[in-house]
């Protein structure tokens, strides 16, 4: 009976005994909005079947390892392929952090490339599109919540493949620092008093 059961399992698993991504280059993007700009976190995971196509784009001299120059060059290429538009204006993205798994890990379908990018533009309308290697890729794109920062995000519109996203957003007015207001108020009152005193002396 057990043998029969195992044979059934073997039959069911014949084509799927795999733990890792196969035929897609998964590009998962998280957008973090701040009052002063946009942070973009990108995790790129090449599947085993597509890795041979991605490899020469990473290891440009085909020496079997990733040099810092090759990593930087690839990260900058990705950055150029990302289109961020804030309030109708293109917002260039700068690579601020990058982490590459080894080529061996990626070859096994385990490795990924993690990039952090930043755009300085702030506004209320965001549009984002990923143009990087569309023929190989599957995409995820989401906006991070920041409830503590008073962020409100409107309905998010995406294309079916999640290559692009667009939405309006706003932040609650920043709560001022009360002690600064008090200091400014006191300063203004003192200055006003001084001016009055000087004027009175001039009149007398």
């Amino acid at each position, binding site marked *: 009976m*057990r043998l029969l059961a195992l044979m*059934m*399992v073997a039959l069911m698993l014949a084509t799927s005994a795999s733990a890792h991504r196969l035929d897609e280059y998964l590009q998962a993007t998280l957008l973090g909005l701040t009052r002063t700009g946009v942070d973009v976190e990108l995790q790129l995971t090449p599947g085993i079947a597509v890795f041979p196509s991605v490899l020469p784009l990473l290891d440009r001299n085909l020496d079997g390892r990733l040099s810092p120059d090759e990593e930087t060059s690839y990260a900058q290429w990705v950055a150029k392929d990302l289109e961020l538009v804030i309030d109708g204006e293109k917002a260039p993205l700068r690579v601020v952090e990058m982490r590459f798994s080894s080529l061996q890990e990626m070859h096994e379908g385990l490795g990924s490339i993690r990039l952090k990018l930043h755009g300085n533009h702030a506004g209320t309308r965001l549009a984002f599109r990923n143009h990087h290697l569309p023929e190989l890729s599957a995409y995820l794109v989401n906006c991070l919540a920041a409830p503590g920062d008073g962020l409100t995000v409107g309905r998010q519109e995406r*294309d079916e493949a999640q290559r692009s996203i667009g939405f309006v957003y706003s932040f609650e007015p920043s709560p001022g620092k009360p002690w600064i207001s008090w200091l400014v108020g006191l300063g203004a009152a003192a200055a006003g008093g001084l001016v009055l005193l000087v004027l009175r002396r001039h009149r007398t």
Partner: protein
Amino acid sequence: MPRSLFQAHNISLLEVRGNYVHDGRVTNLRLFTTFLAVGLLQAQGPLVTNANGFLNSLDETQRSKVLFDFNDATQRAKWSNLPTTMVARAGLKLGDLNPAQRKAAMSLLSVALSKKGYEKVMAIVEGDEQLKLASPARAAGPMFGRDLYYISILGKPSAKDPWMLQFGGHHLALNITIVGREGILTPSHTAAQPAKYTVEGRMVRPLGGETDKGYAMINALDEGQRKQAILNYKVADLVLGPGQDGKTIQPEGIKGSGLTTAQQAMLLDVAGEWAGIVNEAAAAIRMAELKAGIGDTWFAWSGPTDPTRPAYYRIQGPTVVIEYAPQPLGGDPMMHLHTIYRDPTNDYGKKSVAR
């Protein structure tokens, strides 16, 4: 039971009012929560006893491998969906334990989990054993199987001070933080490959409840509600899977306040597939919390609603994120399922520990 007796035993009452329906009988909820609170204290006793029993069954070298500092952030986050041969885990491997030690480890796990939760976890582990048997032999040793699951303990098992029990391997990561009467299961990862297998003539579906209840939920919505719940884009994988601790995304889909009372109960029942993995006493606290936030809990769906075809869904509320994602990794995606269970406010029990 008078309130003073609760205070004398340092038991806090759950501030829930109303009636509790169980097996067709209506019970006063206050009375129910009274018994629940007493049960919670009793539930932690066997957990600590079993944890100490397991630790006492080990030799010094093994104990040094299984014990970590409660604040060891590296160990806490050392979990993955991938096989242990690909992403190394720390702790003690089941395959390295003798039968008595292994029995003690499983006994500890069974007390930490509900009966249904333990069965689910064992079905995931057994599924991995089936995967091993169906995979070609490797010179470097097996990549799957029930021997390749790890157990670890962070902190000192205690009824008073916080500690943590981790159990996991390929397709499984349970992170259970115990803080007094609470057992916090977030973040945890459950998955299944194969998602359906037969053992001795019995069909096993480790994530059968998650699958069936998810499809029942989407199909219980009317056309207008479904329009809100179904996303117009494809979701290729978990968004907040392993490695995404501390992140929360903007919710989408249909909000719980737009559901009928019966649909809200269904949604809670879907979430219960994850919340109910921990022991019954801890799960009752968690379910009460999820129920309190149900109006602000969103349900989103991506894909067909036909139960024979793969689809992704997400439940996201003030204290919960659940994702269910069939994996398009070759073969039938419905035979390879990944899920994640998080509480952005209390992952690894951070809120409960701070309290």
